[in-house]
């Protein structure tokens, strides 16, 4: 297992470097940090030269990534122009904000996902099962921007119009006190959780149904163990094995920052920072977010595979 992990990491690092190189070239190719400076050229030659110097704009775009990588290895990810601070600090602040959405969304999704799959497996093809399966189909088809807008209108605006209560703040982030955090974070968290619940419960239902119909469950029942114990101790534990890998991937996706949800609810996390970076354009910040999101994705993929091997003794990585 240890050797496998090391080998995976070692094979991924060159790929990551190539990926970052290509993203850097892509960003340099598609954006122009000199855009507005060009207009005032003879007058602001000094500033122009400064920018050219700072971003190596006099070199070919195929060479520029190496400077960035050289600095990145030494821990210097450059300066974010959009936020006027070092990229590493911007990422820390924004990343914490994203964590405040991602962690609760994941916990809710994982918990409800398991509950729903257990329910569906205990009463397959019942009205409740059909309702939840149908809802999960809708949840998988709902693009985040539609769901986010719907929640924002119904829970954020209409609730106020109809009943005169305004339990949720939309359009800003407040985490001064726990109450403020709940009222501003609930809607984005719900948006993120809903999609994940749809995916997790659908997958979990299939996994549970497969386990419930297997021989060792019949054995457990024939021994006279209570149904509750059969489901929660015998069936669920085995159904969780494939679910855990999906959990890891879901969590990784949430951690990378949801561009759409954060932009709808104006949550200053990584996703929104990325949009700001693109609009600016802020190359260093873009590269910083890319490398962070990639490492999270790679890391959790690896964790998923390793966990799978740890939880299921039948899986061997040699």
């Amino acid at each position, binding site marked *: 297992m240890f050797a496998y992990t090391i080998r995976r990491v070692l094979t*991924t690092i060159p*790929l*990551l470097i*190539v*990926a970052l190189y*290509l*993203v850097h070239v*892509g*960003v340099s*190719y*598609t*954006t122009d940090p000199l855009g507005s400076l060009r207009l005032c050229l003879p007058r602001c030659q000094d500033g122009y030269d400064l920018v050219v110097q700072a971003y190596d704009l006099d070199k070919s775009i195929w060479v520029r990534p190496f400077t960035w990588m050289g600095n990145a290895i030494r821990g210097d990810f450059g300066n974010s122009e959009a936020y006027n601070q070092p990229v590493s600090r911007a990422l820390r602040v924004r990343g914490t904000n994203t964590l405040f959405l991602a962690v609760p969304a994941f916990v809710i999704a994982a918990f409800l996902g398991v509950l729903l799959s257990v329910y569906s497996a205990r009463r397959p093809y019942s009205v409740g099962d059909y309702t939840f399966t149908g809802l999960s*189909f*809708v949840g*998988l*088809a*709902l*693009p*985040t*921007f*539609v769901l986010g*807008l*719907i929640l*924002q*209108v119904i829970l954020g*605006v*209409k609730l106020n119009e109809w009943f005169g209560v305004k339990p949720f703040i939309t359009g800003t982030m407040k985490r001064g006190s726990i109450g403020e955090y709940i009222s501003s974070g609930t809607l984005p968290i719900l948006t993120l959780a809903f999609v994940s619940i749809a995916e997790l419960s659908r997958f979990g239902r299939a996994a549970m149904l497969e386990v419930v119909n297997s021989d060792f469950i019949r054995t457990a029942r024939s021994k006279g163990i209570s149904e509750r114990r059969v489901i929660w101790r015998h069936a669920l534990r085995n159904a969780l094995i494939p679910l855990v890998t999906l959990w890891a991937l879901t969590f990784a*996706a949430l951690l*990378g920052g949801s*561009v*759409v949800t954060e*932009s709808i609810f104006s949550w200053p996390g990584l996703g929104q920072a*990325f*949009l700001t970076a*693109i609009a600016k354009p802020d190359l260093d910040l*873009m590269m910083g*977010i*890319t490398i962070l*999101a*990639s490492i999270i*994705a*790679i890391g959790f993929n690896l964790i998923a595979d390793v966990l799978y091997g740890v939880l299921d003794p039948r899986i061997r990585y040699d």
Partner: protein
Amino acid sequence: MTDLAKPPATPADSARSARNSASDAREGLADAPQSYAQLTWSRLRHHRLAIFGAIGLVIIVVLFIFGPWLNKYGFDERNVRDRRQGPSREHPFGTDPIGRDLYVRILTGGRYSIRIAAIVAITSTLIGTIAGAMAGFFGKWVDAVVSQLINLVLIVPALIILLIFSRKFGANPLGIAMVLSALLWTRIARVVRGVVMQFKEQEFVQAARAAGASNMRIVFRHILPNVVGAVVVEVTLLVGTAIVLESTLSFLGLGVQPPTPTLGNLVYQEKGEINNDPIRVLIPGMFVVGIVLFVNFLGDGLRDALDPKTKVEKE
């Protein structure tokens, strides 16, 4: 397991034949043999959700193609006097802040979205099938190159790549279709590669090779027909993904640029109106939901239907 029991020592002929036909019927031997395609079709026909999805998709696509002609307005025709109207007989979905008819705009937008999805489906299927088949068939360095390319796309979160490139290339429908295909071909390639690897060592391929068939002929005549099923399912689901990704990019203002409407940028433009008139803003989004829902129904049905292990329900 009664058919394993030995027949009685002295059975009456009539009784025996009755028993045989009964067990034949039970094992399906009495039916006329059906080809794989026939079986697939009959499984699909009995899959209620799949048929529901297929019909829904056809309705939506027909609406997108012919719908705009049923209304006298052009998709970028302004009538400032009629701006910000709710649904009426004249404007079934209302009008936008500069008085353009939203019914025509949404259906035209849907037309563009469907067209983008179709281009993505075709190009990524072509690229994915060829790359996947080459990787699976030739192995060695070809496989290494293709696999690493696939992994490369998986390492960086998809939306980041899309956001970066759609800024420059995504402004027109064809450009965004190309950007999406450059990302989504990997899904097809992975499936095709797996199936080809599974088939290339089988006897019928060796027989073809022994008969002197060229590599091209083996791949295209003998192996790729076996891939069709898996690819059809993947392409169906890919159409849904492409529409969601396209509308998401357009919603963020980075996809197709106005005045060309798509389902995503219509929501983006009307976003500010959502508090006053949510229905009007959300209609394009609902079309996206509808398309993706139907596509997923159809895809799931196709997956079940193409699986030889699924039993056909008898009427």
